[in-house]
């Protein structure tokens, strides 16, 4: 079977690839041709290079495969990415938003951001690495302007609150958030469901209108992806 790449039927900037063995994968168009970020496979189709997007490595890909209805990250978007780590998901966000968009990658661990800096952001002009603590959003106010989307994947007990604090400073009204909640990093002794509900309640209290809550099994255990609109 021939390799074939199609645009995703619903989400601009995202592609579906059919491989030789007939399986279908997600992919994004590589903004930095020839560069691999985390060992993903590159595919060239009709002269354009695409990067396969691994749902086991990236929660955003997992959420899309699990049937997310709205992906607020679109070409041209400005995105504040909290917890970018070494840039696995952030690089795909950079692919999707393209040259017209911008993604601010906030990460607290110097080791992780070093990889991000040297392997990813250097080759992607639409990415800005920021070594800072997401719990103190005013710490990066000299760099970050208003954004369309905040994507939040930080292993912190109070992720929803941290996200709300960031939204107050940086998110446009009617902007979107995507929050990956990891039950284990909040409290291992509690039922995951209870914890999701608690975080979602915090979002609602902070003027978010929750749209979708998607479980990420089997790609990630005890994780959900929450999307919401900001009515701040």
């Amino acid at each position, binding site marked *: 079977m021939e390799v074939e790449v199609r645009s995703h039927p619903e989400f601009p900037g995202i592609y579906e690839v059919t491989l030789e063995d007939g399986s279908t994968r997600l992919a994004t168009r590589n903004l930095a041709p020839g560069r691999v970020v985390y060992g993903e496979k590159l595919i060239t189709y009709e002269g354009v290079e695409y990067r396969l997007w691994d749902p086991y490595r990236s929660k955003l890909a997992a959420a899309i495969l699990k049937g997310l209805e709205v992906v607020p990250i679109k070409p041209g978007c400005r995105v504040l990415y909290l917890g970018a780590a070494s840039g696995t998901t952030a690089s795909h966000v950079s692919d999707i938003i393209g040259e017209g968009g911008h993604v601010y990658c906030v990460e607290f661990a*110097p080791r992780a951001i070093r990889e991000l*800096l040297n392997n990813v952001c250097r080759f992607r002009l639409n990415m*800005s*690495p*920021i070594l800072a603590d997401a719990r103190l959003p005013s710490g990066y*106010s000299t*760099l970050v302007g*208003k954004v369309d989307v905040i994507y939040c994947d930080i292993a912190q007990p109070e992720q929803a609150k941290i996200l709300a604090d960031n939204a107050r400073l940086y998110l446009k009204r009617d902007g979107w958030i995507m929050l990956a909640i990891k039950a284990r990093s909040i409290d*291992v002794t509690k039922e995951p469901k209870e914890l999701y509900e608690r975080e979602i309640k915090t979002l609602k209290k902070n003027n978010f209108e929750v749209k979708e809550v998607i479980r990420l099994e089997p790609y990630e255990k005890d994780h959900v992806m929450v999307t919401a609109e900001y009515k701040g």
Partner: protein
Amino acid sequence: MIGGILVRATVLGCVIGILGFGEDNNLVDGVTFPRDAAVVAEKLEELEAGKLIEELEELIERLRGKGYTTFVFERPKIAQAVQEKLEVEVRIESITEAGEVLRGNMGKLAVELGFLEDEAELAGWIHEVSMELTRRRVRRATEKRDLVVVQTIQMIDDSEKTLNLFMNRVREWYGLHFPELNRLVEKHETYARLVSKLGRRENFTPENLMKEGIPEERASRMAEAAVRSVGAELQDVDIEKIRMLCGEILKLYRVKSTLEEYLRELMDEVAPNISALAGATLGARLIALAGGLDNLAKMPASTVQVLGAEKALFRSLKTGSRPPKHGVIFQHSLIHGSKRWLRGKIARLLAGKLAIAARTDSFSGKFIGDRLREDLERRVREIREKYPKPKPKPAVRARRRLARRRK
């Protein structure tokens, strides 16, 4: 409100420069940065650290000239610096209306101030500055910081040794005058403080002692001992020298505790996972013994387990005597706080977790310390339940046979 009582301007820093906004939250004035990312990154760092940069000073001067008297900032540190150095009235508001204007229109304002030709250039500029800024921070954060840890922990140990040495001298010296105090005050630091503050033993009255935080009962016991002391009457000049020495010793105690605090912060940055498992001090000792974080990360758990017990380890390898169960990790409360017959098992377990933590700290930088800690504690509970009693000792003969076999 010019002519009124209050004319406030909001002053905000961003990648294009320092901007001032009037009461209606419109841009009134701004001092732009040079178009050099490295220079701007440095300026932004200084600004964040609470240093007054020339652009900020200039803007405040210009705004003052326009009649503004109160300045609003979003960042407390900057506000404080301006207040102290320029002596103007400042206010801090964590989210200002002007800030909202700036964050929403950074590109437009950059063009308005003549910093950029076109709004579209802003993203590229932010990319450049953020790259430079992050590069600087990363360099500072990771550049041989583990070797700084090594020096810090060794300095802490050295000061501990020095303090002991000095305090033994002081106890003996002051003991000529008031020998009974030696047994009454066990803690070196308290001893030094009392001598430094009170001087002659006549001043060891219950009131004075209680002022120094000694509980009533102990204070009266000490006062009584002072009255009945068999020590020699020393001259004031003699006592003065001892007091001076005690003052220096107290300073060294302060240095030591500052270093300990610093070490904790440093370890959170350099080796957060090891810190979470073993605490900053023990973690730092392990790094020091291994000669750096990288080296520690490359060691097998079995080596980590006996780091610091090299003498016993090599004796065991040479003569076949029993190998050590633990090196410095004995200082971990889970080991020295456990029953003797469990310590070996727990040491093995802890060393295993520490090896994982060291590798994570060295190679990935992710934080998994809380998970490791949970695992560790759960396993320790299991071990404690499984082995409530020591294993019965083999008979003396059998033990000899075992020892021979080891050879």
